[in-house]
């Protein structure tokens, strides 16, 4: 068993005599019920003292079989399934799926609907990254950031709720457009079929608060010496490994992969209208993964501020047949989700139900590298690495 070559060697100095000790390895079971595993990830670690000699992630505790369930549901019903894949960024999950169906049907969403999708996707991204930026310091031993960032995130959740009626599971996208809630949310009393009254002011306020959260996190966490010692140089992923393992999103960009689906030609939403930067890191370590996300929040704030000033008028919904039959064909459509590339491969055979729906989720590929980068790490470093990958088990297991 070659993996045992990584055994740590402990040197004990005793009165000038140096003795090499080779420990017996033991198996340490971390999870599935463990606060640092973001849900129900189970890690079977073979440890030599404090050092990990081998790591086997065991997943499937959250497996809900969404791909099978999708084969027994109409396209409209599937929307309700897929925003539960990665519940921290529920709205963003829907966009790529709906775009894939629109691609097969041949419907183009209205400009207004596209802007609303874009704004809500970016709000979701900020919310997702704030959850990361607050829970990551917690895993490294600091609880204050959790309270601070969650407090500001609540403003964003209120905005999302006022438009869609849901905080997490929005179920908001329809083929050809979006379906605003009638009378949902706190700021909305009357029945309305468009964005709620006071929406732009609420978004502006939420962005101000998100910026405050970033400033506070910068003061509290980004320059924090303990965070640096815990996260810098820990869990390094090379650029080559990131690509070969299919690692995407902020995790890949932290490793220097300068790639963002939002600015590609096949981008699903009109990001080309806005001025923003793609943030990349250099070292590919846990700290860069943290930093990329913090900076991405600021970029997303920039996008949202530009977008709310230029939402076009017009209908929210393109003309779509009442009974949605999707013509035979296959399409793969992907989007830059907060966690990385979220893609849907739809095989349609002309009915109301897809013949096959393959869900490509970001977290699944993102954590598949764990067993490689954990070898040789100390157990506390494993927690620092795991937290920096920002995965959600619903997105891993689907």
């Amino acid at each position, binding site marked *: 068993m070659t993996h045992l070559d990584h055994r740590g060697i402990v040197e004990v100095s005793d009165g000038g005599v140096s003795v090499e000790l080779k420990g017996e390895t033991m198996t340490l079971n971390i999870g599935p019920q463990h606060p640092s595993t973001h849900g129900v990830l189970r890690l079977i670690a073979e440890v030599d003292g404090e050092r990990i000699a081998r790591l086997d992630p065991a*997943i499937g505790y959250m*497996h809900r079989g969404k791909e099978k*369930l999708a084969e027994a549901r109409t396209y409209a019903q599937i929307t309700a399934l897929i925003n539960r894949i990665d519940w921290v960024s529920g709205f963003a999950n829907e966009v790529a799926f709906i775009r894939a169906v629109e691609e097969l049907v041949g419907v183009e969403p209205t400009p207004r609907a596209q802007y609303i999708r874009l704004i809500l996707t970016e709000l979701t991204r900020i919310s997702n990254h704030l959850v990361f930026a607050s829970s990551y310091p917690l895993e490294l031993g600091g609880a204050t950031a959790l309270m601070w960032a969650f407090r500001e995130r609540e403003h964003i959740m209120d905005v999302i709720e006022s438009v869609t009626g849901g905080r997490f599971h929005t179920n908001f996208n329809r083929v050809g457009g979006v379906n605003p809630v009638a009378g949902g949310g706190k700021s909305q009393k009357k029945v309305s079929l468009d964005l709620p009254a006071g929406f732009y002011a609420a978004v502006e306020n939420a962005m101000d608060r998100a910026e405050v959260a970033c400033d506070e996190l910068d003061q509290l966490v980004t320059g924090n010496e303990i965070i640096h010692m815990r996260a810098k140089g820990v869990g390094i992923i090379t650029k080559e490994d990131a690509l*070969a393992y*299919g690692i*995407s999103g902020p995790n890949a960009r932290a490793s220097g992969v300068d790639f963002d689906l939002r600015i590609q030609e096949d981008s699903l939403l009109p990001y080309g209208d806005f001025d923003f930067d793609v943030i990349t890191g250099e070292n590919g370590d846990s700290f860069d993964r943290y930093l990329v996300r913090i900076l991405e929040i600021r970029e997303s704030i920039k996008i949202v501020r530009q977008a709310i000033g230029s939402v076009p008028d017009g209908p929210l919904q393109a003309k779509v047949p009442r009974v949605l039959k999707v013509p035979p064909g296959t399409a793969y459509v992907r989007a830059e989700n907060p966690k990385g590339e979220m893609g849907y*491969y739809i095989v349609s055979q002309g*009915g109301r139900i897809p013949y096959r729906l393959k869900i490509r989720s970001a977290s699944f*590929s993102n954590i598949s590298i764990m067993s490689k980068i954990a070898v040789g790490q100390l157990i506390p470093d494993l927690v620092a690495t795991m937290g920096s990958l920002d995965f959600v088990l619903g997105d891993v297991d689907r």
Partner: protein
Amino acid sequence: MTDSPSETTEAPNTLGTFAADFAALVGAERWTADHGTVHVYLSRDQWVAAATAARDETELAFFSFLSAVDWAKEVAVGEPADDVENLDERYEVLCRLSSGTDDTALILSTSLAKDDAWLDSLVSVYAGAAWHERETAEMFGIDFHGHPNLINLYLPQEFEGHPLRKSFALGAREVKPWPGKVDVEELPSTENVEAAAQTDGEGS
């Protein structure tokens, strides 16, 4: 999946050109470029060589996903395939590779006979294929030769059956058929969808 090559090779777009070039490079006979998605159809023995060529010569370094489709005449769940009479029963394995710098991407596709469902593993080419192949193996019962650790990923090791095969029934639908007694509306047909759409607009 029954498009003839003559139909699709005429597509005068850059995607089509890219697909044709790659097909020529790896010796594939058929390709399609519909809905912004390039498929290149390979035989089983071309599989690993084509993935290697995609990585080394076409610079598709990003491993997106690997999965399969069960093409079956009889389905235990959902709607049957189009044109069931002429359907060629098989497993279609798909592997999507894309670029880490632009939007170039393609899907490699190969068909496996149901009684001889095995394929060479891509783990030596793309390390990220390991988990995807484990998932495909347990969900479809496809064997990946040369995989270092082909054990179940999601399901318990003693689980029997392959859930994403079309012959595998969906338990929830077996014990409680849908639409059931408590459902207010049937699976949408032309008439009642119109009614449902109206209540949607006014409700909640």
